[in-house]
């Protein structure tokens, strides 16, 4: 059983992290929702907390915002402990899932709220509000009531309301989940641009792994309250630490096999490895498997023969389910090739068989 990869600091490894989570745990009654999470967030980083519902990602966000309290562990921001501070004293702002705009205030007043309650100089407020609304392209709605806005518009106002306070860290709790698909893609691009522009660190929560890969500098994958892996999207995709990480992010084939004297055997598949004897799990991405035209394999490749059970065409590619005869159904992604019948030869590089933990 391999351990999850050590959380890395972002590319600017020399700087001290903005936010440090140390052994953070949270229990609700008998249920341990978060177990021993340690994670760093660097300034200006776009970090996504990715996980299924129940994985604890929203709870972690709320702990950082201050709406829940730790059972144990520490949260530090710029070196100082913040987990003992109430939410209104933390330099962190949240964009809520349902926006939570104040219905009795108009858009401008909503955005100005944080500045007002913290006693910003009165003459500064209109300017900063206008700046924030400009960033989210909602300037002409300043006098409107939230109830008159569409979901996408409300979400921008919620963003502006948070950003106007120039927080060091912005928490976003599944902000795009209530939007329809097209609007979502649009907002994803805008959010990314906004983050680059402002240089504020974003901690983004989602269950959608495509969204996570598209937006993040780093992804922190949560599973059942534990940190499964934290790395950049490319890193996680190419070198998933566990079978779960491999399956959750993108698609994969998880091969279970046995290593004996330098050879691993997974059903009909065999190839040489550098590992000790014992059970082993491997992840092979569908797009790394290809049709072998001549049925020959090279030394660095693994070959197998199988019959195509299912074929799903999705425009840019085809996904095949191939029966290898040993009970394994391998998924293979190919460029569009027309319907395939009968048995075919497939190959993949040994280098593309990534050893993963359980």
């Amino acid at each position: 059983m391999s351990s999850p990869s050590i959380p890395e600091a972002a590319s600017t490894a020399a700087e001290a992290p903005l936010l440090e989570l140390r052994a953070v745990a949270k229990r609700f009654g008998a249920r341990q929702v978060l177990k021993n999470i340690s994670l760093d967030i660097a300034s200006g980083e776009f970090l996504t907390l990715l996980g299924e519902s129940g994985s604890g990602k929203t709870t972690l966000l709320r702990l950082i915002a201050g709406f829940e309290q730790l059972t144990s562990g520490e949260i530090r921001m710029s070196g100082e402990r913040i987990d003992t501070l109430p939410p209104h004293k933390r330099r962190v702002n949240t964009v809520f899932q349902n926006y939570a705009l104040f219905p009795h205030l108009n858009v401008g007043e909503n955005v100005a709220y944080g500045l007002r309650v913290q006693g910003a100089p009165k003459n500064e407020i209109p300017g900063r509000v206008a700046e924030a609304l400009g960033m989210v392209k909602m300037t002409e709605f300043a006098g409107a009531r939230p109830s008159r806005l569409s979901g996408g518009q409300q979400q921008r106002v919620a963003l502006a309301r948070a950003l106007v306070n120039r927080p060091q860290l912005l928490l976003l709790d599944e902000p795009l989940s209530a939007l329809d698909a097209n609007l979502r893609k649009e907002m994803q691009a805008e959010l990314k641009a906004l983050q680059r522009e402002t240089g504020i660190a974003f901690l983004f929560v989602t269950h959608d792994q495509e969204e996570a890969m598209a937006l993040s500098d780093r992804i922190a994958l949560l599973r059942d309250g534990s940190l499964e892996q934290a790395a950049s999207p490319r890193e996680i995709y190419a070198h998933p630490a566990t079978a779960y990480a491999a399956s959750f992010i993108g698609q994969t084939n998880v091969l279970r096999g046995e290593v004996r004297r330098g050879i691993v055997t997974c059903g009909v598949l065999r190839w040489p490895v550098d590992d000790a004897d014992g059970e082993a799990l491997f992840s092979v991405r569908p797009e790394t498997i290809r049709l072998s035209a001549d049925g020959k394999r090279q030394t660095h490749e693994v070959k197998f023969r199988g019959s195509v059970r299912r074929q799903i065409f999705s425009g840019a590619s085809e996904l095949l389910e191939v029966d290898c005869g040993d009970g394994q159904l391998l998924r293979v992604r190919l460029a569009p090739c027309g319907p395939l019948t009968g048995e075919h030869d497939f190959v993949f590089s040994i280098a593309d068989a990534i050893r993963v933990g359980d």
Partner: protein
Amino acid sequence: MSRKSPTRRSPLLAIYAVLVFAFIYLPIVVLILYSFNRDGVGGFPPRHFTLDWYSQLFADGSIWDSVLNSLLVAFGAVALSLVLGLLAALGLDRATFPGKTLFRRLVLLPLILPGIITGLSLLMFAVFAGMQLSLLTVFLGHGTALISVATTELFAGLHKIDRAQEEASLDLGATPWQTFWRITLPNLKLPLIAAGLLIFTLSMDEIAVTFFLIGRDNTLPLEIWSRLRRGMTPEINAVSTLIFAVSVALIIIWYRIRMRSMGSDAQQLLERP
């Protein structure tokens, strides 16, 4: 969600409903009619239209004294009930403390207990505390009994507030106190007005509890009551009609306000994606 009723239209039921409505409104209609009748109460049909009883009413000093007394008590009761009711609703909605269930039941008890019980127990308390019966004791009685109404209305109003709004306020740097004044209370504006109207109306009409706590100064219902003991006069019809008219106006305003406070929620829900 206005769907056509899936059950068959039933004319019998409609007729029955009309009859029930008639039963509910009949006595009041009679009352109003006869307040304009020269021959006073009784007999059929009412023959001569007159406004004499109303002019007699307006000249009656002691009635207006009692109206003033009622108003004093009512405004006091509104203030007291709303403040304590708001705190009670907040506590019941958000806090946990030992004895919370007992507290909740106790607060709501005067709603369902016959007025005589609440009235008599407060009377015993007044005697025990050495208090003279007066408008003050009436005020205490109304205020205490009507906390239950305020608590119920305000609790429902609190429930409707999206908790995330208060979290958002804290998140943006407002202290809990600021959050209460800027976010929670404005969201309760409509329920507060609605509760206030209701408590005012109930206090103006209250008899059962007042009966046992009244001193020398009468409230309006008790003034009417004491006159009734002495004999019926159509003047009472007139004042009753006026009370009815004012109550109806207040209740309709209350209902509209309540619908608006729930309606704006519905509208918000509709506008969400």
